[in-house]
């Protein structure tokens, strides 16, 4: 089984669902090897073998590209320089004839090495020639004569050249680095995860590969390729659920590859299956719907909370983003307040719509009724649920949505959007279409007005939530495995 996270290191519902599922599968006698990007060693491994992709030693033979080599060498040589030069003819005045001749004319000599059109090099050559080869004879210069001069001048220089060469494939053993989160380099990490999983698939024996959400899709496909075993893709949310209209094309493309390559596609709700049908190419015959359940840890005992205010509290708890429908909650609030002015509406959470929600509440004249708590975590979440008289989940799009179950486990009655996966299985909750704010307000008012309705929903709801154990959905997943293995 390939998943991105596993308790205790979780940032969303995915890790919890993976844990619950493996726990349930264990009761059905299914042995699970759970591979996650980064195992820290403190994962809850009571029901599974946990393997971190970061622990896998990869023996790689990496074909490197052809390399450009720069070669340098020293070249030596000499230039042969030939010159015809004029040299002075010196009159020998040591004898009498010479002295007579000297008197008969006068020769003026300007000593210069300069010549027209000469280069510097030629000048230097001349200088050398004069000072070394031709010591001036004594005596008066009477004429010049041309002589031929040959001389070798040696040189040395450094020469570099480039050429492409094949490299030896690189053999190495290494372990990949993973953050295990959802950070900036998620796409790289997804690719590295696939690399590690491919290796794991070579080394382990198994019958089915089960990959959760798009991050595990490349890994699942790689494992299926090397092992030739059937692949189950488990869709907890698709890109259209996460991002609404601003879809990441790269992620969507990976999801589509998964849907194409999977032998079975398990969706967490009919709602999600519908989303896939609407936005992707999907072979309906491969689709199975298996709803999530609650792990024992999520089935908390009731928290006793002293409520300091008398006014009833209606709660929104979740990310304050378009997808979660906080604006519909405000609209319903304003309708409720017209009928019952003393009702408190609490928006707990943060998100990109928080400031606009605060402004909007003020504009609508609801500032005294609507309270914003910001982001809550840990026990505060439970206390908030327990304090509330009504929990509303007005989501515009919710593949599953575990929060109503948490509220119900704490005896808080729930109103939830029909545009959610969880509404398909929950019986003891009031359901509304998220856009029908009149109906939402009607149901909030009914819950506040009729104690029997609260009693009904909490009494039977508690039992219902308790019965939502992972054994049942895990059995359905096991059936999917059996179907796949049997077909081979």
């Amino acid at each position, binding site marked *: 089984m390939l998943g991105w996270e596993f308790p205790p290191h979780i940032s969303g519902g995915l890790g919890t669902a993976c844990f619950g599922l493996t726990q349930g599968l264990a009761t059905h006698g299914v042995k699970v090897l759970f591979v996650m990007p980064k195992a820290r060693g403190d994962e809850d491994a009571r029901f599974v073998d946990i393997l971190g992709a970061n622990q896998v030693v990869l023996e790689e033979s990496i074909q490197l590209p052809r390399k450009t080599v720069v070669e340098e060498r020293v070249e030596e040589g000499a230039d042969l320089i030939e010159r015809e030069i004029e040299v002075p003819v010196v009159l020998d005045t040591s004898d009498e004839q010479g002295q007579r001749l000297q008197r008969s004319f006068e020769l003026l000599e300007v000593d210069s090495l300069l010549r027209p059109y000469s280069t510097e090099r030629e000048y230097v050559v001349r200088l050398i020639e004069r000072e070394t080869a031709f010591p001036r004879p004594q005596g008066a210069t009477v004429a010049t004569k041309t002589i031929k001069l040959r001389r070798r001048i040696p040189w040395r220089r450094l020469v570099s050249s480039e050429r492409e060469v094949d490299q030896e494939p690189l053999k190495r053993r290494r372990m990949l680095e993973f953050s295990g989160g959802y950070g900036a380099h998620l796409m790289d990490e997804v690719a590295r995860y696939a690399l590690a999983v491919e290796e794991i698939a070579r080394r382990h024996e198994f019958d089915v590969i089960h990959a959760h959400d798009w991050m595990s899709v490349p890994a699942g496909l790689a494992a299926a390729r090397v092992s030739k075993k059937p692949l189950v893709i488990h869709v907890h949310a698709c890109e259209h659920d996460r991002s609404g209209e601003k879809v990441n094309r790269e992620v969507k493309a990976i999801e589509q590859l998964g849907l194409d390559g999977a032998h079975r596609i398990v969706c967490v709700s009919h709602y999600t299956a519908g989303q896939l049908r609407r936005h992707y190419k999907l072979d309906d015959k491969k689709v199975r719907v298996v709803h999530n359940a609650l792990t024992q840890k999520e089935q908390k005992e009731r928290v006793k909370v002293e409520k300091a205010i008398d006014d009833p509290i209606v709660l929104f708890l979740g990310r304050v983003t378009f997808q979660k429908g906080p604006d519909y909650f405000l609209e319903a609030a304003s309708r409720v307040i017209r009928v019952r002015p003393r009702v408190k509406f609490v928006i707990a959470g943060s998100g990109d719509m928080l400031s606009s929600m605060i402004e909007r509440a003020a504009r609508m004249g609801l500032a005294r009724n609507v309270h914003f708590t910001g982001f809550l975590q840990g026990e505060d979440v439970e206390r908030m649920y327990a304090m509330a008289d009504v929990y509303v989940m007005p989501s515009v799009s919710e593949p599953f949505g575990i929060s109503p179950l948490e509220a119900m486990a704490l005896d808080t009655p729930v109103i939830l959007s029909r545009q959610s996966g969880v509404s398909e299985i929950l019986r003891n909750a009031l359901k509304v279409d998220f856009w029908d704010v009149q109906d939402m307000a*009607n149901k909030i*008012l*009914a819950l506040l007005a009729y104690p*029997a309705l609260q009693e009904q929903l909490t009494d039977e709801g508690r039992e219902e939530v308790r019965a939502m154990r992972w054994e049942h959905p895990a059995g359905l997943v096991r059936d999917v495995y059996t179907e796949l293995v049997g077909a081979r």
Partner: protein
Amino acid sequence: MTDVVFYFQVHQPFRLRRYTFFDIAVEDRYFDDSENKRILQRVAERCYLPMNKLILELIEKHKGEFRVSYSLSGTVLDQMELWAPEALESFQTLAATGYAEILGETSHHSLSSLTDLSEFEGQITTHADRIETLFGKRPTTFRNTELVIDEKIASLVERLGFTALLGEGADHLLGWRNAHHVYRPEGCTKLDLLLRDYPRADDIAFRYSNKTWDQWPLTAEKFARWIHEAGPEDAFVGLFMDYETFGEHQWKETGIFDFFAGIPAAVLAQKRFRFRTPADVAAEHEAVGRLAIPRPVSWADAERDVSAWLGNPMQRAANEALYAIHPQVLELAAAGDKRLLEHWRRLSTSDHLYYMCTKHFSDGEVHKYFSPYASPHDAFIAFMNVLDDLDRRVKQATTSVRAHPEKQS
């Protein structure tokens, strides 16, 4: 002789509008007239009219050897008068043959017998008057809503002059005894109790079109063979069921009409058997023994109790809230304002409580099929909102009656 007794229940409730909290004190139309009309006309067309025609033919063909009985709730009578008078006429035609007995029940198909016996009595009398007016004969056999019986109910029914009472042949009621005999409820001196043979009745009502049933397909001959299995001492076989079984719950395409058309001849093929009405059976057979009915027994669900209507907190709260305003409603009616009583009584129809039922799994499917609501909670909300408004109107009217009593009389 063993008598085969067909009794068909004919009932439609006044379903509520999607009445929200915001309608309270604003909107005084509680009932969804267009939906009620649509359903009534559909049922009349698919069931009442074709089935009445068929039964009339069978009665004429068998010259008194084929008989049936009906119980029509006051609400379905209202609806037929409003939206399908030809259907009401066809029932009157059947009654006029003398071979279709019309039974007594509560005027509004209520469960008042479980909460308020004086209201129960009031609804029985109102209904008996109306049946007498419409069909020319005062009913002598009583069937309570959903076949709910217990000893108190039986005693009251006896006191009101009925000679026969219909009930469910529940296993826990009968024990080792046979549903094919006439019994006398504990506490009664002359009332005859006729019980339903639920396996045989449900063969038609529930299983007839079920293709996964090992006896499918059911033919008139096969069914008659099962009827003929009744022992020679058996007084009757009670085949009690909803009339909508024919053409509505089981569509015409299943062959249900042809199946039914074949039953009289197939059953009568053995001379020991004949068709009779409950009143006939009560007149001709003596009770074989007493039957203790300490707790209410109904014909619903696997439990055969009243948990389908009063089993959960919502249902009990709704029922309690309804009867809490009953005295004031009666007071107003006595002072001349009967409109609110009619509204109240329409709310007393058992269907409203049935829609709030949260029993799921095997029975829940049946409940869901009959409910106009998406969930039992939605049913409760609409009902309570309406009741809230009715409560306000009752209080307003009471105040004005007390202030100006002369205006109301």
